[in-house]
């Protein structure tokens, strides 16, 4: 199994519930009768923090758990490492069921599997930046020399070399959170938990940190669970998003799935404020190519393909569907009349081309006066499909309706 194997499950959460109060059984009974959070609170005085949460965390992914305040997202992330004791349910990480662990096993599990980044940084004010970064390793009893080394490395990763001897109070908010990040990275735990990690930062710094997190995450393939209340943030960093409301999962999926197919009104309202043209990618407007020509085809064959499909230009591909270029009906017609054997000399290269992840608003600007459809190719230049102007407009209009 490789790190990039998507089916490799790191954490499995099943039937996780949390009741705040002294009579959790009563509350869960009512929940099982189909009662919701406000009713349970009224009848028993117990707060149903989380109810029957199921989800998987895949190895190496960046999973965002999103919800408004009171949705239970902070409770959920704290249940994972038992900073909050779950009331019922299983959390299985590498075969260990966390709620069942003894005190000692739990400590060991936290040290090995979890490092955490906090909303308000939670740096130790009496320790230097360096000592803060070393903390996780210090707790584990790693010897001084090697923990100095790892801490230094992770400080470098977050761009803080040269600040080792400063105290947290001497740093700006953004830099403090970098220390928080370095502390989590140095620990080299298998899972990184980030609790509203960027919410306390101002918007510009926040964007920077998001970008850096994405880069770091891609580079290190560290399984990351990120909590946020901000949909824009969730969309720009998440591989997958889980949406929580009143302690229940409302929807989970890729950012695009959530945006284009909101599971209910709640999600739809959430999605409303997002600029869709920025989020939608070429993929969602992609149409299969109706016909392509081969470079070895003769002009008459190509003409036939074009007229069968009502095209006035056609993309030419090689043997393994690598895109070679485009030919226009006028050129092919002329070649046919001149009695040429193949169309290979007619291939032009001034056509628009993009990858499947290209944002929609970039695509719009790519249509040129010849109005060729945009060719969408993968990393190996193989033709995946085309995007026509109409499809882009259609997608944008559809997005605008939400």
């Amino acid at each position, binding site marked *: 199994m490789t790190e990039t194997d998507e089916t490799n499950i790191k954490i499995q959460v099943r039937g996780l519930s949390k009741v705040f109060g002294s009579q959790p059984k009563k509350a869960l009974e009512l929940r099982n009768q189909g009662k919701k959070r406000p009713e349970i609170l009224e009848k028993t005085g117990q707060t149903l923090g989380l109810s029957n949460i199921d989800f998987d965390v895949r190895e190496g992914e960046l999973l965002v758990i999103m919800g408004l305040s009171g949705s239970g997202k902070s409770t959920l992330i704290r249940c994972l*490492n038992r*900073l909050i004791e779950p009331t019922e349910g299983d959390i299985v990480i590498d075969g260990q069921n966390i709620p069942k662990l003894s005190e000692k096993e739990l*400590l*060991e*599990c*936290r*040290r090995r599997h*979890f*490092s*955490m980044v*906090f909303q*308000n940084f*939670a740096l*130790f*004010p*009496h320790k230097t930046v360096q000592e803060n970064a070393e*903390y*996780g390793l*210090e*707790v*584990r009893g790693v010897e001084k020399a090697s923990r100095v080394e790892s801490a230094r490395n992770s400080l470098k990763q977050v761009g803080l070399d040269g600040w080792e*001897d*400063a*105290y947290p109070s*001497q740093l700006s908010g953004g830099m403090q959170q970098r220390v928080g990040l370095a502390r989590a990275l140095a*620990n080299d735990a298998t899972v990184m*938990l980030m609790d509203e990690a960027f919410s306390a930062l101002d918007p510009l710094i926040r964007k920077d940190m998001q970008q850096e997190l994405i880069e770091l995450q891609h580079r290190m393939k560290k399984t990351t669970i990120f909590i946020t209340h901000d949909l824009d943030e969730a969309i720009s960093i998440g591989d997958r998003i889980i949406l929580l409301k009143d302690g229940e999962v409302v929807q989970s999926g890729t950012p695009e799935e959530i945006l284009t197919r909101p599971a209910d009104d709640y999600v739809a309202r959430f999605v409303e404020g997002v600029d869709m043209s920025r989020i939608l990618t070429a993929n969602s407007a992609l149409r299969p190519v109706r016909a392509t020509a081969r470079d070895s085809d003769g002009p008459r064959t190509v003409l036939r393909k074009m007229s069968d499909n009502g095209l006035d230009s056609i993309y030419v591909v090689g043997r393994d569907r690598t895109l070679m270029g485009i030919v226009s009906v006028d050129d092919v017609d002329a070649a046919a009349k001149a009695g040429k054997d193949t169309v290979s000399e007619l291939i032009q290269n001034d056509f628009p081309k993009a990858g499947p992840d290209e944002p929609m608003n970039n695509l719009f600007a790519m249509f040129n006066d010849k109005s060729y459809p945009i060719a969408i190719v993968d990393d190996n230049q193989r033709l995946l499909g085309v995007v026509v102007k109409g499809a882009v407009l259609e997608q944008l209009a559809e997005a605008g309706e939400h």
Partner: protein
Amino acid sequence: MAIDIPRIPLGGGIEDGLNFLTSHYSVVTRGISRVTQSGITVLNEGLMWLPEWALMAIIALICWRVANLRLGIGAVLGLALIWNLGLWDPMIETLTLVVIATVVAVVIAMPVGVLAAMSDRFYSVIMPVLDFMQTMPAFVYLIPAIPFFGIGSVSAIFATVIFSMPPAIRFTTLGIRQVPKDLIEAADAFGATRSQKLIKIQFPLSLSTVMAGINQTIMLALSMVVIAAMIGADGLGSEVWRAIQRLRPGDGFEAGIAVVILAMLLDRITQALRKPKKKTS
């Protein structure tokens, strides 16, 4: 027709209890007495062995290092006045009692304070006890001290420790409980054990508050060792006591001023220790 309610024999009960303790645990009390007495003697003689000017220089240097030059100069002037008034030896005796009583009080107070910070149940038990210890008139402690340890400095220390300990306990508890929850959560998240949290996080972060408690303890100890002259403790208190008995207000004030100078020096030094100099990079 008045109902005759019998008087509750509270005082009698306490006396019986104390008698029981003195008769059955005399081995313990005598042991404590001997150890304490030799501690007092050693420290006293050590401080007296130093020439006055040398001790003055040392104290002035400490003042200068932990606080500032002004306090150093103040220390020299104040101590010189005490020397001049012929109160040097009583001052040393008082200082000895304060130092020993404070050390004993702090050694007991720290673990108790930590325990009270960690356990809510222990907290709810210990707080009324501390209220009792602090509000009971100080003189009352002098009385049972005598059957335990006899007339003299050991009794004075016993009473002083009990009287001055509460703030050290309270501030230790307060300091540890004041450590921000999110820092404790961070330590927990990284898998810190209880003692790792205590030693590396809670204790360093509560140090300033704990020092404030120790400062209070020292001040209370000083006031108590003066009062303890009534049961035969040596020092500036006995100078005051003698002045009262002979109706000599001048002598009384001179000894009183010496107490004030000593109090101010101890207070300023411990205050300065509380605020460690800002480390700058």
